């Protein structure tokens, strides 16, 4: 659900990825109305964490409109790895974070500790509850799980493993930060190209009609090359 908490010099608003836009706007209003800090929050700046939500410019305008015009909260930054969302935020010259910077709430009178760089490949898994369609690009600093297909013309790039519960026909790049122990799993593995760390493998030339799927497979690095085994 919608979460609002104090963060740095303002508020952190975390929005669920699942709600439709209208329901989301209603949920934001509901959350703010029930807060006892409503008047305290007025005039605050806020960072919005969109999770995996795809937010187009119009939707972003509506969300900001509710916060700004309704409650005097001014969003100045967002957290998102979704290209569409980032593009929409960029248009409004908001600050854009890939992942939520380490939350630092320094105790009074004590200098804040320097932020530690997040450990690559150790991030939480990103769960994509739908098919990744052509033109969509999923970038995540951790493992990615797609509950659907990855279609031709799309890309999934992960610092860790990639798990596709449907058919993988787009480009998948696991271990994108150089981790050769990363693997790519798919219920049906039919990509034009696979990448793990700095290695890549191409699909064998076919007559266009790809052979019937052999079942779930896993691609991993074995003695310096990408190798595919049943999963």
């Amino acid at each position, binding site marked *: 659900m919608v979460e609002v908490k104090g963060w740095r010099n303002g508020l952190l608003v975390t929005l669920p990825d699942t709600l439709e836009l209208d329901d989301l706007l209603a949920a934001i209003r509901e959350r703010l109305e029930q807060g006892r800090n409503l008047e305290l929050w007025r005039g605050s700046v806020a960072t919005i964490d969109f999770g995996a939500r795809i937010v187009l410019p119009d939707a972003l305008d509506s969300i900001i409109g509710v916060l700004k015009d309704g409650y005097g909260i001014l969003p100045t930054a967002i957290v998102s790895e979704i290209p569409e969302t980032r593009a929409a935020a960029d248009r409004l010259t908001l600050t854009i974070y890939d992942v939520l910077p380490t939350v630092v709430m320094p105790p009074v009178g004590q200098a804040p500790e320097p932020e530690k760089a997040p450990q690559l490949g150790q991030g939480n898994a990103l769960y994509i509850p739908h098919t990744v*369609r052509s033109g969509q690009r999923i970038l995540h600093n951790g493992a990615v799980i797609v509950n659907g297909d990855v*279609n031709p013309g799309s890309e999934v790039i992960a610092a860790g493993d990639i798990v596709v519960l449907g058919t993988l026909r787009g480009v998948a790049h696991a271990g994108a930060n150089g981790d050769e122990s990363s693997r790519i799993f798919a219920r049906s593995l039919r990509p034009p190209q696979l990448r793990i760390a700095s290695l890549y493998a191409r699909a064998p030339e076919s007559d266009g009609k790809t052979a019937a799927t052999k079942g779930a497979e896993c691609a991993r690095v074995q003695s310096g090359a990408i190798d595919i085994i049943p999963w």
Partner: protein
Amino acid sequence: MANARVIVITSGKGGVGKTTTTANIGMALAALDQRVALVDADIGLRNLDLALGLENRIVYDIVDVVEGRAEVRKALIKDKRNQNLAFLPAAQTRDKSAVSPEQMVKVLDDIKAEGYNFILIDCPAGIEQGFKNATAGADEAIVVTNPEMSSVRDADRIIGLLESQELRGAKLIVNRIRMKMVEQGEMLGVEDVQEILGTGVLLLGVVPDDETIITSTNSGEPASMSETSRAGQAYRNIARRLLGEDVPFLQLADEKQGGIFAKIKKLFGG
């Protein structure tokens, strides 16, 4: 009054038959006693007027409506062949930036107030401003694709964009299919297209490649008006499916070859 179904007809890729599809479904729905308004959202590249044979009756266009020079009722052209059908042309001398999504929604609301059952929007190719305008006021979408990879990939992109605009449940029309080529493995079949786009995308119709479409587009008589056109029959079926009828898919395989295509018939679900 305001319960018209607003359906955008889109594809991403150009040249797959959006305009022909819009004209034909519109004409077929009108023939089924539905009041239908067709809106050409392809501002700057006006085409739907030709497919409908109404180019010489254009006085006002959608930009005139948006900019207040004409009311929507005045700008809508009534088709003389079927009074149920009306048409709002695009402007040919302007470009996509002449209309904003908000203005599009307003125009559609005005058309709804005229009491139509269906408003079909012919979307321009591409995913930029014109696409945003055309989809802004729609509550349903029909995605047209041809059975070839580049068109399917663009359709997939469009479905993704529609979903991100909260326009879910897009319906699919596979246009220009040649059964002989599918059978010989030279063309994607309907099943191949569906496999890529996923089961969430409902198949609304399959339209065969048909030379009568070219002559009908040139003459401004949509093929769905012709009893003998195979494509016309497919469009009439699509119109009936839009009205909720359960119409079996055309048996496209039995053209000249006789009946050895049991496998292909299976593709169309009988």
